[in-house]
């Protein structure tokens, strides 16, 4: 045997570790979970941030986009000459309705122009398959990879699109990726739906013909030079482009794909900041308890070693090495787990975020931090125990410790005396005698439950958010956007479309909202005061009619602009006559998605000094006739975009299942491991400390069940005590996570379903039960004869 080659103390180390292998493994796994979670989240964050930076750099992702209604291409030189502009390009970008074979519902998309040179200088594309456009063939397009994949489109396939009211047959020549559509999502939604949002690239000439933009452009894209003042540049662009119908230039912070990407990176950061410390805290506690109690049971051996002449340091080192082996094992587990999870996560991200490449690669410093923190955990957890080893006098250690003194019991406990049997009294006195130990166990178990709730509640919250958003606020089945504002007779046309049961008009106008230095580029949506479909709700989620005057802001927008009802807000309209108005904030309403602003439709039209005009309508549709309606909408020239509520909702649920489901699964696993680690370790140590006591009781005639009750009853008690505390910790963790998920894109309400509390409690109870059964097997094998002879 290999053990034979070692020095005696090292042999003891190997055999001692083998004897506590279950406990050592449980601690190592908890450390491993913490390290793994850190390596995964931190590594993924850095991989994602680095990939994003490299992708943007290599494919020259625009810093600024300046949309206009129509401006002459000659303006490009003037734009390029603005201070801080490194490079500028013009393009045409427009909304489009796509009709793909096999998809009955119309698909909303975007189409944009490609210059004739093979690739644009700004917002370059990555050709995955097929070839670039041939300028001689106007019907050729390139399609976004995610969309093509979702519909099984290949180079050479044909699709139909309604370009500016005209239905055209297009040929896909290539499949591409773009840094502008890493997260390909239709505006106003919060999860990408590859099937329902398509992006096409077409030759500049062909697109200019289709949209009557020959010699003109409707969007300028810019790269800025390092150190330039973006705000100043945006102002200058707006001023310059005002007469061309500018709706307001914006930077990357308002480009939706990047917004989501940054949001994801922030979430990873939050997870990396909150979850690993919880695991490592539990690991610290476990090390503290296990090593501390192990050393107590080895007291005499320590005294003996010292009596033989081993120095304090040598003996302490022996235990340090035992701790070291456990921690190093934990680090190995963590690094392997983290790398494995990271790779899995990178694969999952590839489904949401379309990068040309995304490799999970945690840099060395991530691993170094993980190792450093784990060692810190080891030191913190075991410092006091190891110091005790150093200080133990050999003579003292070799005398058996007197029986622990239970005489200072709690009075309330003694008052119960008449009511409880001796085994129960033993449990209560034991807990009371070592309150810190009991508290630590309770805290450890509670943490695992809290973690479960913190991980699972997001599902409840998301479901709630979707329910409110789709069933209370936006109850329409279909939203139809028109190309240009129409008079309200358009609504009569739509009402005659098949299956339409109810229609409510709206008008959305681009605006810039200002309150002092705070500026937001938003849309104001004019709605009917008696709206039944798309409604606004107060903070209590009760639908309220839109105020007849003033502007209504979503709570998030009011927060961003720092305005409260009654205050004036500067509204710069970026369409039509472009009035600039000071309008009072009349209401602040609750929203979970986006940063909406609303007005009474008539009031909006009066402000614009226009006759009643609408640019879209919400529809309630007979589900039996949706196909007929879709067919009609695909062929209605004035329709610029269609969004289907049910499909958006389904996409949301699917995404939730895929991404959050995986997250919840792993957290359940990890939290379960913590619970097992804590309960099992406590039970095992209690057993080794009390084996003699329990065996004596067996000799006295108590059954296995009766002595199991004494040992496991205490654990059951601690587990039960931990349940309410765990619920509280879970609530606090959820509240912390909710804060970090409060973004412009969406907010998660602090909603925890009773079933989530129940589920977390169940997992903890099962973990405790499993640990109990493992220990119960050992209780059954207690050596009764040994107790008659041995001292301790």
């Amino acid at each position, binding site marked *: 045997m290999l053990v034979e080659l070692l020095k005696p103390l090292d042999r003891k180390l190997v055999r001692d570790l083998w004897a506590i292998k279950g406990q050592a493994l449980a601690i190592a796994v908890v450390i491993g979970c913490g390290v793994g979670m850190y390596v995964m989240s931190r590594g993924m964050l850095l991989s994602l941030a680095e990939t994003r930076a490299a992708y943007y750099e290599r494919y020259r992702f625009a810093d600024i986009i300046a949309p206009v209604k129509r401006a002459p291409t000659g303006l490009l030189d003037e734009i390029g000459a603005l201070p801080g502009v490194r490079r500028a390009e013009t393009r045409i970008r427009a909304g489009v309705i796509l009709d793909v074979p096999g998809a009955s519902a119309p698909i909303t998309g975007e189409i944009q122009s490609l210059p004739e040179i093979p690739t644009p200088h700004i917002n370059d594309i990555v050709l995955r398959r097929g070839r670039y456009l041939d300028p001689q063939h106007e019907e050729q397009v390139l399609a976004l990879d995610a969309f093509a994949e979702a519909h099984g489109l290949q180079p050479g396939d044909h699709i139909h699109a309604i370009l500016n009211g005209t239905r055209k047959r297009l040929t896909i020549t290539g499949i591409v990726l773009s840094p502008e559509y890493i997260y390909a999502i239709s505006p106003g939604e919060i999860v990408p739906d590859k099937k329902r949002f398509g992006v096409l690239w077409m030759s500049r000439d062909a697109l200019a013909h289709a949209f009557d933009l020959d010699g003109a452009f409707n969007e300028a894209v810019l790269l800025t030079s390092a150190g330039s003042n973006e705000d100043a540049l945006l102002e200058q662009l707006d001023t310059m482009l005002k007469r061309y119908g500018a709706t307001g230039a914006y930077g990357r912070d308002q480009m939706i794909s990047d917004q989501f990407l940054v949001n994801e990176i922030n979430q990873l950061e939050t997870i990396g900041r909150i979850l690993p410390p919880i695991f490592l805290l539990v690991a610290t506690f476990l090390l503290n308890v296990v090593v501390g109690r192990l050393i107590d049971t080895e007291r005499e051996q320590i005294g003996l070693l010292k009596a033989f002449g081993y120095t304090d340091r040598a003996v302490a080192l022996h235990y340090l090495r035992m701790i070291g082996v456990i921690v190093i094992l934990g680090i190995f587990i963590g690094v392997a787990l983290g790398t494995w999870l990271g790779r899995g996560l990178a694969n999952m991200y590839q489904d949401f975020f379309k990068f040309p490449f995304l490799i999970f690669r945690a840099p060395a410093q991530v691993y170094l931090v993980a190792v450093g923190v784990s060692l810190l955990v080891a030191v913190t957890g075991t410092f006091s125990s190891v110091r005790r080893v150093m200080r133990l006098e050999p003579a003292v250690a070799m005398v058996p410790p*007197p*029986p*622990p*003194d*239970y*005489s200072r019991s709690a009075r309330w406990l003694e008052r119960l005396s008449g009511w409880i*049997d*001796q*085994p129960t*009294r*033993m449990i209560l*006195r*034991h807990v009371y*005698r070592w309150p810190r130990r009991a508290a630590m166990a309770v805290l450890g178990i509670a943490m695992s439950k809290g973690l479960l709730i913190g991980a699972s509640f997001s599902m409840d919250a998301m479901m709630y958010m979707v329910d409110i958003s789709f069933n209370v606020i936006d109850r329409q089945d279909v939203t139809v956007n028109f190309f240009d504002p129409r008079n309200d007779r358009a609504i009569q046309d739509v009402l005659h479309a098949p299956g339409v049961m109810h229609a409510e008009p709206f008008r959305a106008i681009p605006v810039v909202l200002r309150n002092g230095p705070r500026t937001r580029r938003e849309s104001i949506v004019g709605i009917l005061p008696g709206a039944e479909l798309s409604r606004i709700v107060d903070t209590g989620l009760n639908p309220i009619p839109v105020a007849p005057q003033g502007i209504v802001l979503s709570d998030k927008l009011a927060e961003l602009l720092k305005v409260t009802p009654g205050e004036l807000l500067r509204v710069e309209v970026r369409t039509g006559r472009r009035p600039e108005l000071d309008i009072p904030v009349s209401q602040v309403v609750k929203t979970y998605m986006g940063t909406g602003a609303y007005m009474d439709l008539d009031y909006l039209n009066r402000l614009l000094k226009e006759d009643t005009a609408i640019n879209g309508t919400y529809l309630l549709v007979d589900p039996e006739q949706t196909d007929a309606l879709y067919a009609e909408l695909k062929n209605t020239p004035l329709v610029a975009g269609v969004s289907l509520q049910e499909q958006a909702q389904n996409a949301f649920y699917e995404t939730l299942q895929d991404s959050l489901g995986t997250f919840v699964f792993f957290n359940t696993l990890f939290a379960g491991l913590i619970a097992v680690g804590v309960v099992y370790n406590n039970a095992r140590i209690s057993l080794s400390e009390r084996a*003699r*006591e329990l065996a*004596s*009781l*067996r*000799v*006295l*005639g*108590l*059954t*296995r069940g*009766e002595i199991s009750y004494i040992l496991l009853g205490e654990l059951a008690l601690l587990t039960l005590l931990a349940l309410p505390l765990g619920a509280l910790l879970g609530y606090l963790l959820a509240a912390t996570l909710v804060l970090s998920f409060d973004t412009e894109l969406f907010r998660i309400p602090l909603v925890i379903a009773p079933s989530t509390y129940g589920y977390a409690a169940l997992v903890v109870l099962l973990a405790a039960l499993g640990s109990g059964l493992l220990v119960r097997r050992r209780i059954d094998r207690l050596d*009764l*004869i040994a*107790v*008659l*002879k*041995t*001292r*301790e």
Partner: protein
Amino acid sequence: MNRADYPAFRAEGLTKVYGSGEATVYALRGVDLEVARGAMVVLLGPSGSGKSTLLNILGGLDSPTSGRVFFDRRELTAFDDRHLTLFRREHVGFVFQFYNLIPSLTARENVALVTEISQNPMSPEKALGLVGLEQRMDHFPAQLSGGEQQRVAIARAIAKQPNVLFCDEPTGALDSQTGIVVLEAIARVNSELDTTTMIITHNAGIAAMADRVLYMADGQIQRSETNPEPCAPEELSW
């Protein structure tokens, strides 16, 4: 034969073998034994002579490799674990060398631990009275001396009014004066409750208080002596 005439224990050809091959150890080599009801038996012998193994088998803690044991008229060696537990619970009291009290229970509660699960127990107070600890009933083990702890252990063992009391080196951890107090308690239980009592000891001095002394060596009973005039514990000395 009426019930009282049956011996408390009867063992036939008990052997106990540990290990196999070269490592085979014979702890018992064919022991035949009868122990009369109410007797006070002392087992004497050096370490490894088999006395603890014999006691463990009679007490239902261990089973022989071959041979049979009868308690009353029932064959113990045919019992499974559950029945052995019941046997210990109802009929046997144990006193250990190192007391093995539950530190989280007071003297009274340590005794109550056993009386709670017995069918015909005396009260914990009475049991503690028998060993002279009326004044110390609400003390925890940590507050009691070694001799007091051992007397609590005896009270705990006899409170269920067992048929048999097994004591394995009951005075081994005590000085002689304290040891005698403990032996007095055992003798009193034996005479007042008519409990069959078996005491293992290294200490030949204790043999004088027994009705019968068994000398064990090499896994066999070498010699059995009957003592017609056992002396009182206070007359012992070692």
